[in-house]
């Protein structure tokens, strides 16, 4: 059974701090790892990672994948109150030649940024 574990489950920081969120996985036939941000409602896409060691970056957010050690990290620098959200990690695995886009999600990390 595919498994995705995120840590920490919750985190409280102050504005300006840097945070690192972790995602480890155990899946058969890994294809990709995705990060989402969820505020009040629908999760929104942040990154998709398929190759080890290549950093994806968007503003103050960055993410990297280690396929040998089976984990990914999401870094947020100079945090702002608007970064407060649940951060979700998900992994796509291939079964029978295709995945149909099926994802297995971790529990999520609840990030709270205080002014």
């Amino acid at each position, binding site marked *: 059974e595919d498994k995705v574990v*995120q840590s920490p*489950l919750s985190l409280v920081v102050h504005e300006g701090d840097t945070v690192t969120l972790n995602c480890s996985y155990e899946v058969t036939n890994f294809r990709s790892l995705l990060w989402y941000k969820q505020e009040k409602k629908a999760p929104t896409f942040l990154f998709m990672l398929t190759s080890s060691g290549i950093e994806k970056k968007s503003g103050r957010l960055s993410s990297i994948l280690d396929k040998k050690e089976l984990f990914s990290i999401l870094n947020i620098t100079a945090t702002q109150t608007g970064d407060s959200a649940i951060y979700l990690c998900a992994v796509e695995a291939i079964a029978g030649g295709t995945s*149909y*886009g*099926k994802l297995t999600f971790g*529990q999520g990390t609840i990030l709270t940024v205080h002014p």
Partner: protein
Amino acid sequence: DVKVTQSSRYLVKRTGEKVFLECVQDMDHENMFWYRQDPGLGLRLIYFSYDVKMKEKGDIPEGYSVSREKKERFSLILESASTNQTSMYLCASSPGLAALQQYFGPGTRLTVT
């Protein structure tokens, strides 16, 4: 702009009722998904569909069924609602055979009393 809509934001039903949750996407996506989200458990896949009239069980299909009669619409059915089905239900869609990003609807918070 990409859009996934769900029929209700909040729903309160009684134990034993039949419940329909509707999801519509306007992106001509092949794949559609139903998840439930509970604190500490993340998103868990209930069912997904990769084509009209096609459906596959996810990780927690018990107590649920689905229907996909048209490409843009994917319905989740609770045949006889129970209190342990109180949850946030999220619908998502994605194109093609790979996990290009999934687009999520706003969610339906279902309470079963």
